[in-house]
């Protein structure tokens, strides 16, 4: 517990609590259960993708194709749903289609990165462009709306358990699964080891390629889940709706304390990063501040978080001695 209070997560939590206090003093609506649930629902897709991105960034990689993969999974699933009967089985089928589409593209990324050793940013830039182009070609940018979906899907999307939306449960489930994988499964520990020191990891018998394949595959899998979630939240498919969203995802992970150079990052930190972004956006809207400012503020938050980290690191490094000088 002692280490928790000194951790990076604690710092983010403190900022989050401070922000919430200021906002609730300013505007009593902020601290209502409804508003908090709205924040969670509005950021469920961000949270799900950020979990996957955390793994990617811990290995020292990056995936800029997440938004494109999510859009692709949405388009494929949305158009398939037009053909599906109005029966509960359709929900399961839609989920399978979404997850399979995401997983396949993710594994493709993973294969290119791990086998062909193409740098992650190049690989995913390439797949992003291909996917975005293909989506435009097939959809002509046309929306799908709730009339295109089976009624059962709409009802499913509005399910509440104990007054809490199913979307919130999805965030919780994805977070817990990711946490378990990272904490208790060998593959999760390999992700950390590779990010910390790839040469040592290989010397210690860790499979670099297999781990990379897993990380990008998992990212794709979660993009499938995110696609499903986005459709449930908006009850529509906007082929262009996610353009540029990958940058928000990366921002959330970086604000959550992950090191963009790899090695460090945590599921809880990322969750806090997502909440911080979500609360900021919500607070700015409640305070009637122009949404353009939101981007400026997000940028400032990222830069101050990262420079603080960098300065800490630099200070630690300068303390390290290179040569044992004779007294």
């Amino acid at each position, binding site marked *: 517990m002692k*280490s928790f209070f000194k951790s990076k997560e604690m710092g983010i939590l403190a900022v989050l609590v401070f922000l919430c206090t200021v906002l609730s003093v300013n505007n009593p609506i902020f601290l209502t259960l409804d508003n908090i649930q709205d924040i969670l629902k509005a950021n469920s897709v961000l949270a799900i993708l950020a979990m996957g991105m955390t793994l990617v960034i811990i290995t020292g990689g990056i995936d800029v194709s997440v938004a494109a993969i999510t859009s692709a999974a949405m388009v494929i699933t949305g158009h398939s749903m037009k053909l599906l009967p109005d029966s509960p089985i359709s929900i399961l089928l839609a989920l399978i289609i979404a997850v399979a589409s995401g997983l396949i593209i993710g594994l493709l990324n993973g294969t290119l990165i791990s086998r062909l050793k193409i740098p992650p940013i190049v690989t995913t830039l390439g797949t992003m462009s291909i996917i975005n182009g293909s989506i435009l070609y097939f959809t002509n940018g046309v929306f799908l709306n709730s009339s295109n979906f089976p009624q059962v899907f709409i009802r499913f999307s509005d399910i509440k358990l104990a007054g809490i939306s199913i979307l919130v449960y999805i965030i919780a489930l994805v977070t817990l699964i990711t946490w378990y994988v990272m*904490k*208790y*499964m*060998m593959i*999760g*520990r390999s992700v*950390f*080891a590779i*990010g*910390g*020191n790839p*040469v*040592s*990891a290989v*010397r*210690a*018998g*860790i499979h670099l390629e297999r781990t990379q394949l897993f990380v990008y595959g998992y990212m794709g899998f979660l993009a499938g889940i995110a696609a499903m979630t986005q459709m449930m939240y908006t009850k529509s498919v906007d082929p262009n709706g996610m353009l540029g969203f990958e940058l928000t995802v990366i921002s959330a992970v970086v604000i959550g304390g992950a090191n963009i150079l790899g*090695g*460090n990052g945590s599921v809880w930190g990322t969750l806090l990063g997502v909440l911080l972004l979500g609360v900021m956006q919500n607070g700015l809207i409640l305070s009637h501040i122009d949404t353009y400012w939101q981007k400026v503020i997000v940028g400032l938050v990222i830069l101050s978080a990262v420079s603080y980290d960098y300065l800490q690191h630099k200070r630690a490094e300068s303390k*390290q*001695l*290179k*040569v*044992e*000088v*004779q007294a």
Partner: protein
Amino acid sequence: MEFLLQMRKVSKTYPGVKALDGVQIAIKPGEVHALIGENGAGKSTLMKILVGVESADEGAEIEFAGEKVHFSKPIDATLKGISIIYQDLSLFPNLSVAENICIGRENAGKGYYRVQWKQMKLLAEKTLAELGLKVDVSLPLGKLSIAKQQLVAIARSLAFDSKLIVMDEPTSSLSSGEVEHLYNIIEDLRKRGISIIYISHKLKELFTVADRFTVLRDGKFVGSYDKDDMNEDKLISLMVGRKVEVINREENKGGEEVLRVEALSKRGNFKDISFSLHAGEIIGITGLVGAGRTELAQALFALNKPDSGNIYISGKKVDLKSSGDAVKHKMAYIPESRQTQGLFLRQSIIDNISVTVFDQMLNRFGFIERAREKQLASEYIQILDIRPPLAEMNAGQLSGGNQQKIVIAKWLSTEPKILIIDEPTNGIDIGAKTEIHKLLRRLTNKGIGIIVISSELPEVLAVSDRILVMKQGRISGEIAAAEATQEKIMNFAVLGAG
């Protein structure tokens, strides 16, 4: 079983270089065996072959614990009972101490699916306790001092039930008190019947810990000796049997002083460095790896800011704030890793040579004049005899020796008065080495003062007018070329006294 490990007929050929040539070594159970040789003698290569990081040429025989073995991955060697503790420790600063010790087996063997945090902690605490270290094993390793990290690395070998532990320069980043503690641990391991291959440059250390010695020189096996038949002088002469290639040279004319350094110090890098360099003179700075040579060179070129001390260029005190300042004062620095730091491999010879003097290549409209660049390049191709003499060729396509000449040309085009060159012939074949040496001597005729930093004693002897030897961040000796021998240098470098 007389020997735990026997390696025989081990050779390793890299393109153009024979790193190991029929080397052998035999380790008894429960002994501390020192593996010793100059930089580049092949110690590390031999160990890399042992654990499967590198593969030996055809015909090598390795026998461990009575059976023939051949490892293709380090983890296979570890599982058989051979651990290696690299000089860089090869640990994970971002992971907990416990995980570092149990890395690769966090599930406590094949039995479980889940990572066994509790078992991991217990095992880590137990092995660390055996080494007399008490730390919170759930802390990230990066929070520990290097000395403690070293113990963690040893604990990892113990946790894998190693029968043989290779330690590569284990004391390179330890203070003297910590070294004492390490000796005690090694003594303890020996009592438990664990064999240790101990690689170190520090002879005093070796005589404290080692039972037997194996000496390598230029990739060849010199011999294995018992401690009783060995002393420091004998060991040094066994290490340095190499012949010096003599270059005909004129006596240094001793021009005016171009560089003077007074009491230059930087914490954790070097201390109290004072010397002067004259026009037309070559100073060789040598010493063992980790003596602070490169750190000093970088400080002279303002890449590593010293804490105190003064630098004078041509008699005037200067305060160099950046490497740009250093260049303005007619200084040039050629770093050791020329491929990554000194060359644009995918650009032409012309582009590589003219990059330092772009501002002189401009025509009156401010555009670079290609003809002028070409002329400059062909000039230096001729002076330095770069082959093939094709100015448009990409630097990456040339041999190592010729690449090094381009790097030199690039800096000569700035017409420096002071040239600092770090490991000028690293990774270059023998013939090209001599050529570079001759080239450096020729440059002195132009009145350039040169500082050559090198760990190769024959090289230092071949080119220098004066040799400064560094040990643990200080200059431990200065020798004039006429009186210098490899033994003398080694004595200063290792013992700190002539």
